[in-house]
């Protein structure tokens, strides 16, 4: 069992990293560990557990800003925000059950470090778009900060963007500040039943081009729709294309009606209201269709130009024999494949070569994640920049080495 440091203050954390730098001892950076089985496996001998740096240090609802330690559970933050009718706009997923762990274990540090965003990403932006500033310790053992607590800020490089999605390989964050937004007064979802992939793709593209500010556009083939806990979806017996609308009540009612009349001419439609709507989009967000207990198939998260999504999905299903569904208006494909040796990574990446995009192996046995490129391999020019950036923060490679790419 690896030895674990669990600093209780930012100073202790800095001391621990400074020691690791001096001794050139790699550290595995961890919060709650709910995403430990995502990414390339760590082979660091020692663990730096930042879960003790927790708690909300600033929340000003009228300023739309919240600061908290990295170990702060997302559940705590979401509850605090909900009390003031606000939310994290990027809808961070809870991938615990998908990864074989508990639900509700994720932290703010983990969500930001992995740049994970839910279905609202297509309207509200990703976690990186709501990450305003941070304090951290670099792989030089130095405390530094970037950004601030205001939304509009161009003072110096936007290092928050680099930290977000860096998987703990650039710095260990000790405090994070995010932008929050009001929760919508009303949420509804228009369901279109029975579309095949091509028709679904066309309907999703059409929905994205309306002025109705759709905040979720997804498509579940019949087999996956059947597994939903929402009866309107599971009982449909057909594929379900879903379009979410959020906002003030009169506006939501108007926009749902408009979408149904524009997109529902040829198929049967239905509407999900508040609670069913929330439950349905949580299922998509948390990849529940592939999270059943005992399901050990490999899971890919694939980002493509939205219009290509339906076609790429069909090609992937045909090529792998797996199952898949679409989110982000077609721009996000969740795919599961029964391929315990190589996760069919060549087939998957070949399928997105033409439209462009990237594929990330989210769930796979450890040996597969060690052998197969988990993240999309970068072009050589970009790879050189990534190495340069890594070296600028962590020249001795002590922070989560190899967690994203073998050479980083």
């Amino acid at each position, binding site marked *: 069992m690896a030895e*674990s440091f*669990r*600093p*209780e203050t930012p100073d202790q954390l800095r*001391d621990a990293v*400074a*020691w690791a730098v001096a001794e050139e001892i790699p550290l595995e950076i961890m919060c709650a560990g709910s995403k430990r089985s995502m990414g390339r496996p760590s082979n660091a001998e020692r663990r730096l*557990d930042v879960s*003790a740096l927790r708690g909300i240090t600033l929340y*000003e*609802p009228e300023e739309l*800003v919240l600061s908290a330690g990295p170990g702060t559970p997302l559940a705590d933050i979401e509850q605090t925000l909900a009390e003031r009718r606000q939310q994290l706009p990027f809808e961070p997923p809870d991938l615990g059950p998908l990864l074989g762990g508990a639900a509700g274990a994720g932290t703010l540090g983990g969500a930001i470090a992995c740049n994970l*965003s839910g279905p609202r990403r297509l309207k509200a932006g*990703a976690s*990186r*778009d709501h990450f305003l500033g941070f304090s951290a310790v670099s792989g*030089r053992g*130095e405390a*530094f*900060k*970037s950004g*601030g*607590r*205001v939304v*509009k*800020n*161009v*003072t*110096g490089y*936007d*290092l*928050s*963007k*680099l930290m*977000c999605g*860096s998987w703990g390989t650039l710095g260990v964050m000790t405090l994070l500040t995010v932008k929050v937004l*009001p929760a919508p007064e009303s949420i509804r979802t228009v369901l279109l039943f029975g579309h095949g992939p091509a028709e679904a793709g066309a309907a999703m593209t059409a929905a*994205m*081009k309306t*002025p109705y*500010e759709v905040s979720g556009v997804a498509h579940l083939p019949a087999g996956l729709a059947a597994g939903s806990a929402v009866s309107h979806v599971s009982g449909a017996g057909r594929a379900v294309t879903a379009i979410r609308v959020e906002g*003030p009540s009169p*506006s939501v009612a*108007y926009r749902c009606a408009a979408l149904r009349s524009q997109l529902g001419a040829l198929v049967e439609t239905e509407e999900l209201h508040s609670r069913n709507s929330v439950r349905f989009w949580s299922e998509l967000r948390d990849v529940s269709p592939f999270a059943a207990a005992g399901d050990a198939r490999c899971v890919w998260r694939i980002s*493509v*130009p*939205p*219009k290509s999504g339906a076609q790429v999905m069909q090609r992937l299903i045909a090529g792998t024999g797996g199952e898949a569904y679409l989110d*982000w208006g077609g721009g*996000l494909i969740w795919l599961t494949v029964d391929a315990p040796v190589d996760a069919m990574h060549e087939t998957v990446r070949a399928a997105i070569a033409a439209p*462009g*995009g990237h594929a990330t192996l989210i769930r796979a046995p450890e040996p597969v994640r060690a052998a197969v490129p988990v993240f999309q391999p*970068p*072009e050589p*020019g*970009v790879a050189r920049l990534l190495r*340069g*950036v890594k070296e*600028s*923060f962590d020249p001795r490679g002590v922070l989560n080495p190899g967690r994203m790419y073998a050479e980083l």
Partner: protein
Amino acid sequence: MKMPEPDAAVIARKDEIAAALRGIVPGEGVIVNDDELRPYESDGLTAYRQPPLIVVLPETTAQVSRILRYCHDNGVKVVPRGAGTSLSGGALPLRDGIVLGLGKFNRILDVDYDNRCAVVQPGVTNLAISNAVGEEGFYYAPDPSSQIACTIGGNIAENSGGVHCLKYGLTTNNVLGLELVLIDGEIVRIGGPHLDAEGYDLLGLLTGSEGLLGVVTEVTVRILPKPETARALLVGFPSSEDAGACVAGVIGAGIIPGGMEMMDRPAIHAAEDFVHAGYPLDVEALLIVELDGPESEVDYLIGRVEEIAKANNAVGLRISQSEEERVRFWAGRKAAFPAVGRISPDYYCMDGTIPRGRLPEVLSRMAALSQQYGLRVANVFHAGDGNLHPLILYDANEPGELEKAEEFGADILRLCVEVGGVLTGEHGVGVEKRDLMPAMFTEADLQQQQRVKCAFDPKSLLNPGKVFPTLHRCAELGRVHIHRGQQRFPDIPRF
């Protein structure tokens, strides 16, 4: 403002450098004569001027690549330039460096409505993108007030905002991909019509990097369907406290307006005298709140904002009843800068951001500073996101007034930082705020930023002298300082 010491050896090689550049860019794309260099001597921050050694205006990415490779191999500094509208001196030339102008990169390459994106060259103006997609009912959301002139390449460099960014985000939230030429001539592509490029978020890093990391030669932006309608409220208040409370009340009620702008008494009077927008003159603060979306939503929210404004002592509240009236409400705000230009020989535009709740305090301390310096100040304010634009009025022909205005401005920005805000919300650091950076950042913070620069530009040839108050050599920044023989930190809990 101290710029890096010009390299006399490079200046002496001007003819040789010009000849090499002519080998890359044929025709009239290389400018060497003093009178033809003059138009490039400053950008929108005209207090600083410096003609460059040479201006080169390439037309293709391959030319940009060859120019940068030449400069890299020959130790020639490069200042990239779009339309030259920077308000922070981001495109201020160097005596021993070339200006790389991207004005000829002015084509819209592709509009992909199905994927809601457009691929454009960096010299395309911000407004031209919205105009190109307008007929299909789309627009590009960030709208800096210079949008008729400023280019998307410059918007990337500065991470430009505008009045709509509270709801729709800054440039960084609306860019999907870039083609970038590195200082050694390598061409790299980042992102595209898909979301969230993998690896570190280089797209996010490059946006707002002020031309210090690379030269952008192609941009993919997100375009959005236009809202069905927009209406605005024009509301006066007897005090800035009341106006501030109204803004907080609107957001506290869960409403994110498309735009929410505030002006103080001097700005209201200057604007009204200039464009006769019908602004009330007996108020201390004026708010313009714009709601956009479907008509049913806009009507509903207008009603709620009206209630909140009335509860905060609103006077002379008006709601636009037509598109023409909405545009008239905005006319004064949009003309605020030239309006102030009419009542003073010169003005100096500042750009701090503060937590919104601190506005009354900041305004009253700014009034005290105004007394102290003996210079008037007018305020326009992106109230929704806390971005202040104090306009300091001065007369450059009065000896010492420019310096006094600059000191006043620096005090305002330090005040912004003191209350939890930042030095610049959307205009960039450039040369203007470079030496104030230590008010916000420690030496360790700044060194980490410069190390990132070293990863892109180890010889520090791209736009040197901007953003960072102290230039360090990359070799020096790269050293790791080790304190060996330390205890193994017995006070850190371990398992």
